[in-house]
Each structure stands twice: as structure tokens, then as C-alpha cells.
């Protein structure tokens, strides 16, 4: 495209805390009008997790540029997006293939800063996420909540190489500054991708999002998926995503990414922390609105299984990911066999950790078995968070820290039984090690 110098014409503008803004410079309605619907009515299809994530991004009118590294084997998100767009003759959406994941992250910074009203998604995994790290940490602090980095959980943050999925990668990136949302199941993946930008782009939050799901178990395995009509999705998102009140590079006279003195660094970081904490206020509201519109559970801090109304249980499990389904399937039988009240929590929001909500949910448990599936040199990422959440209770439940499913191994029913037995032993007063690793029904 060749530029020509247009005759000067007046354009309204106003001051913002981040510089001058020309609100009419970008006519977003034109982008909205150009969107071609993928679905015009609700349908049930069969899809794997990567396809679910790709379809969700393709259905968003604010997604017009899809940047990615072409060879991330854990996710065919890019291939799926490319396949759809290649069929749209005359379509205006574009894919952008970059030479490396680090370049993808840089590209997302430039694109998201250029137009803060569009959503810029990508997908990656494991070392790809590591490769992005220099810039994901800048992104995390940038206020660019219109970046959505879909992470397919994989274990190769560690040696030896393992191509199956545990959440070591995402949990190693807890402090990159992204809102980290864990999904289990294709439907939750699809639904989360639809909701995440509403949270990240909320004016109180302005923080990029990182929806994630387990490699292989959820990324590559198929299941039924209910997809919603694009128009309904747009109606939902448009209730939450208003034009950004801060200027971007295109519609602003502004500066991003300044250097600061240490004195002012404090203020920037406090602001970043506060934006992140506001996620705890807005996430349940977005989730509830989603459920009202689509009739499925929306974003939540966690899913639960088996808690009575008063919350009093003997054993509570805290875990995440699709293996929690095995626990759900055997929970009642185990409770009946042991005459214990057994319940569980599957974390959805990893960062910021919903400390208060977790404490309230677990405050009447006698013992809590925390199942960590990511490598950690201490008691486990989740264990430390749960321990922190419960620390100021007058009577603190006994915390049992276990590791299972490392490297993406299935957590079998017998493994769950052995881990719950560990919790039962804690209830009986047995001494517990700081952590224990279980696999195929055995403590390693």
C-alpha cells in the first residue's frame, strides 16, 4: 500500500494521562462490519482443544491479525486459523508468521500498542513461552490488556525433554504479569478464550491474559464442543469491552515504554499490582454474565466438587487440569469406603491467586491435599499459594503436599487413592514429609 499525504483536516482530540488522544482517528465500526461470521447459530461439533481456542479467536471481530511462530508442535492454533482465513476470499483478516517466538512477543507489543481496541492473540507452549519471556515481562507491565497469549501447558521448562503436558511452563511464568487462567476440557477452553479479553481489557485491569490448557490431554484430544453464533459472542464482548480511554500509537500523541528512576519505579509497580488485584473483583462478574447469556459456567476462581453447604469436610483436594475429572469420578466411592467427607477444588485462576476465596472454601476442611503437577524445587507452586491463603485461619487445616502427573502422565484412579490415603494419614496424626511424588499408585 502506498501512502499519500492527505489534506489537513481538523480532528477532535483531548488530553489523557498518557498523552493526547484522537478518538475519531480509528473508526472501529468498519472493522466490526467487515467481520465474517464463522457461526450464525449454536452448533455442536467435535474438536480438540487447539481447535476450540482457534475457533474462539476467529469469531472475535476485534481479532484481525493473528501472529505466531509456525512450528509450535503443541498447538495447531496457527494452522487452524490459517486454514480458515485461507478460505475467506476477499477477507481482511491476516495471519503473521514470525521467525521466532521472541519476535512474536515483540510483535504483540507493537500491534497491541498501535491499536488498543483490537485483540491480538497468539498461542505457544513450553520453551516457546520461555523464549518470549524477555518481552512477556514487559507486556505484563505494559497495560496492554488486549494481548492474549494462549499457552498449551508442557513440561519442557525442565530437562529431560518431554513433549507431553504438565503446567510447569505456565507456573514458571507466574510473575510475568499475565492473568493466568487454567482450563480443563474443550468447552472451557473455548469459553475462556471468549471471556479473557473482557477481563484483560477492562479499564480497571488493563493486563494481558494467558489462558492455558494441558498439552496432549486437552490440546490434542477431541470432544464435543458447543460453539456459539458470532453475533451472540460480539454482543457479550461489547458489553464489557468499551473503546479504550487511553491512546494507542495510531490514535494518540503518546509514549510507551519509558525508562524511570527508581523512585518512580515504585509507583509503576504498585499500579501494576493493583490492576492485577482488580481481576478478583471483575472476573466473577464477567463469568456470571457469560453464564446468563450462554447457559454454561463462565469464568470462576475455581471449580468445586462435593462441598456441602456448610463447607465442612474431612479431606479437601486442591488441583487443576483434566486429571481432576478422575478425582471427581472416584470421589464419592472413596468417601463411602473411608467414611470421610471428601471434596475438591480445581483452580481456574492461577494469577492473581484468589487467596480469600480459596480460604473461604477450605476453612472448614480438616486436611487439604494439594496436588501439584508442575516441577518445583520446594513443596509446589499450588501448595505455597494454598498455605498462604490458609495461613491466618485460627485453626489451619493440615496441608499435605503431593506431586503427580509430572511430564503429563495421567493421574490414575489408584494414584488418586494413594494421595487421598496420604491425606487420611494426616488426619490421623501421622507425620508427613514436606512433599511426596506419586505415580501409578505408588509413592516414588
Amino acid at each position, binding site marked *: 500500500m502506498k501512502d499519500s*499525504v492527505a489534506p489537513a483536516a481538523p*480532528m477532535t482530540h483531548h488530553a489523557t494521562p498518557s498523552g493526547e488522544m484522537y478518538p475519531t482517528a480509528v473508526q472501529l465500526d468498519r472493522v466490526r462490519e467487515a467481520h465474517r461470521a464463522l457461526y450464525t447459530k449454536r452448533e455442536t461439533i467435535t474438536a480438540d482443544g487447539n481447535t476450540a481456542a482457534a475457533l474462539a479467536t476467529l469469531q472475535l471481530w476485534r481479532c*484481525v491479525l493473528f501472529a505466531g511462530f509456525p512450528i509450535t508442535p503443541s498447538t495447531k492454533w496457527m494452522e487452524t486459523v490459517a486454514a480458515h482465513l485461507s478460505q475467506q476470499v476477499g477477507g481482511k483478516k491476516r495471519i503473521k508468521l514470525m521467525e521466532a517466538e521472541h519476535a512474536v512477543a*515483540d510483535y504483540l*507489543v*507493537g500491534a497491541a500498542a498501535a491499536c488498543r481496541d483490537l485483540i491480538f492473540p497468539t498461542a505457544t507452549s513450553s520453551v516457546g513461552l520461555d523464549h518470549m519471556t524477555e518481552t512477556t515481562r514487559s507486556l505484563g507491565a505494559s497495560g496492554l490488556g488486549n494481548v492474549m497469549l494462549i499457552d498449551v501447558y508442557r513440561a519442557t521448562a525442565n530437562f529431560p525433554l518431554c513433549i507431553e503436558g504438565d503446567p510447569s511452563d505456565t507456573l514458571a511464568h507466574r510473575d510475568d504479569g499475565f492473568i493466568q487462567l487454567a482450563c480443563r476440557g474443550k468447552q472451557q477452553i473455548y469459553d475462556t478464550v471468549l471471556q479473557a479479553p473482557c477481563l484483560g481489557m477492562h479499564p480497571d485491569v488493563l493486563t494481558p491474559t494467558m489462558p492455558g490448557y494441558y498439552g496432549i490431554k486437552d490440546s490434542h484430544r477431541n470432544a464435543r464442543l458447543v460453539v456459539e453464533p458470532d453475533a451472540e459472542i460480539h454482543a457479550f464482548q461489547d458489553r464489557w469491552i468499551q473503546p479504550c480511554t487511553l*491512546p494507542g500509537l495510531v490514535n494518540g500523541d503518546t509514549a510507551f515504554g*519509558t*525508562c524511570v528512576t527508581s523512585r518512580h519505579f515504585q509507583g509503576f509497580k504498585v499500579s501494576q499490582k493493583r490492576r492485577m488485584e482488580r481481576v478478583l473483583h471483575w472476573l466473577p462478574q464477567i463469568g456470571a454474565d457469560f453464564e446468563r447469556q450462554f447457559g454454561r459456567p463462565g469464568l470462576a476462581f475455581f471449580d468445586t466438587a462435593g462441598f456441602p453447604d456448610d463447607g465442612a469436610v474431612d479431606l479437601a483436594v486442591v488441583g487443576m487440569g483434566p486429571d481432576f475429572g478422575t478425582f471427581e469420578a472416584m470421589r464419592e466411592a472413596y468417601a463411602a469406603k473411608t467414611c470421610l467427607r471428601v471434596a475438591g477444588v480445581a483452580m481456574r485462576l492461577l494469577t492473581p491467586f484468589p487467596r480469600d476465596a480459596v480460604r473461604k472454601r477450605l476453612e472448614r476442611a480438616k486436611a487439604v491435599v494439594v496436588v501439584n503437577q508442575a516441577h518445583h524445587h520446594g513443596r509446589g507452586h499450588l501448595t505455597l499459594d494454598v498455605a498462604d491463603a490458609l495461613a491466618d485461619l485460627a485453626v489451619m487445616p493440615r496441608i499435605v503436599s503431593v506431586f503427580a502427573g509430572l511430564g503429563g502422565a495421567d493421574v490414575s484412579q489408584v494414584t488418586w487413592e494413594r494421595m487421598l490415603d496420604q491425606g487420611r494419614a494426616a488426619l490421623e496424626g501421622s507425620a508427613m514429609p514436606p512433599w511426596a511424588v506419586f505415580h501409578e499408585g505408588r509413592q516414588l
Partner: protein
Amino acid sequence: MSGYKEIALRESSFRPGSTLCPGCMESIALQNVGRVSDNGMKTIFTIGTSCAEVSSLAFPNVVAWGRGDDSPDDFAKSFSIIHNVFESAPTLAEAARDVSDILAEHGAIDRPIQVIAASGDGGALAIGLRSLLHTIYRESRITMVVLVNEIFANTGFQYSPATTPFAETSTTPVGEAQPGNPRLPLDYIHLCIAAGAGLVAQVSPAHGKLFVKTIEKALACSTTAVVFVPAPCISGWKFDDGETVRLAELGAQCGAYPAFVWERGKGGSVKDCARDVAERPRLEEFLGLQRRFHHLVQKDPENGHFKARPEREADLERMRSWTQSNVERLFRLAELP
């Protein structure tokens, strides 16, 4: 093309308030780029970590960018700048370019936008060579300005892939075992041509008219234009205050970094630098103005000219040989179509 005087009267987007060293060539270059880009198009500027960045985007000090003293009423005068990590400037620029283009394709914006990226040679040629070459390879319609001071100046004057042979840097110090930088510079001009750039140039504001004309051509280029700006660094090259432009001109004329402009499909030319060594200023006069070469040359008290230090004639001869090959290389590159 606009007139030189007309451009000189334009409003530069590089404003007072930077903390660059007095006499820094980067400041002169950015002021000129800022003026040329005041051409009726809105400007988006991306900048990698570098002297130019840390010295001009420091909050709460003055952010030394923008046109005019107040926010511009005219959208074409508006100016946006973004900094990210060292290597990122071309990628950020490519992203801003793509978003601008895709918005234009949708009919969502109707004003032209130009995108300029700036990096140091460390950011563009060491950490960021991959980013630079791939942005060129993808033919992104941006202008890339690489401020080549031949060192990582911002971080302590360390060696970069653009460092001149025998130059003393903080990581190629001069000692009995090693006479400064042992390596030849990366052939970055050829790399950019080979990667597919639409325009590749090496020119500093010491060649004033050529510089602004080249930047103007770069802004009009339909693919990636890369302008390498030799940027004598008063602190890293260790020369006296007031010698910046003279040194930039002398370095170009003696063959250390000849002025060169090449356009795809049109070929190029070497400017103000003779192919024949006899017709060029003596290399020693260029080296002698900088204390980074103090181990190679010294002033002859008899005639005031610089000459090789005792036992350094062989090194100086190697330096002359490299300079000649440098000049020959650019003359040959200029013949590429």
C-alpha cells in the same frame, strides 16, 4: 523531494530535553530525521534500548519527543513513540505498520501513517540481527535507522559487531597480548541488501543534504529501508568536544565508513570517498583524533601529522588494507541492480 532549506525549517519530533552527551551524533541525526518526517504524515516511532532511548524517554524527566510545545491540533503532526527491549525496534515497527495497513484496508483510518524504527548497532546488529533481517525479508514498509557508534555505548562502551578493527573498547582493551578489537566488522550493508531491503544507505548528517535526501527516500520506499548512520561517540571513541561532525565526515572520506546509498532496481553509489587511496584523506588523521586508537598512531612533532607508533606499522598497514577493502566492497555493492 523537498528542498534542504525547507526541511531545515520544519518542526522536528526530536525535542530539547535529551540527556545525550553534548556533541552526540545521535542527537544530530534524530533532529534531522525528526524534521524530514514532518511531512504531513502522522509518525509512529519505535526505538530499541540504546543511548538514544535511555537518554530521551526517561520519566519523570522530559520526554524529548513530539512536535511542538503543545499537543498538536493537526493529526498529521501527532507523534507516537514506543520503546521495548534492545532488539525489538524493527519488529515493533513492523507490527505498527501492519496494524495501520490493516485498519486502512478496513477503511477504519483515512490518514497516512509512516513508521520509523531506531536502534543502535548493538541492538540492530548483535542482539537484534535476526529481527532486523526478518523484517527486511518480509518487506515491511518501514524506515530503519541504525545509529552506528560501533559499540554498546549505553552499557559501558563494549565491543559490537560493527566495531572497527584495532579499536579499543571496554571488552577489547589494548594490552601487550592484544591490540584492541581483533575482528573485522560484520558486512551489515551487504546483509541488508541480500535480505531484500528496498534501500540501504550509510550516511551521517555530516553529509547534510545527502542525509536528509536519503531519509526522505527511505520514508517513500515501498519496502524496508535501512539507513546506517555512522555516529562518532564522544565518550566511547574518546575525542575532543566539537569534533563530532568533522570526525563523521573524515571517517567517511578516508574509507572507514564511506557514504553510500543503494536502491533496489536503481543501484547505488559511493559518495565523497575516492576509490583510489591516494585521493582520500590519510587514515591516520582519522585515527589520530580518537583516543580509542591511541595505541596505533601518534602525532609527529615535526609536521603535526599522525603516524604509526613504533612497532605498530604492521597493524596500521592491516588497518589500511581493511579500509581499502571496505571501500572496494561498497563500490562493488553499488553495482548491484
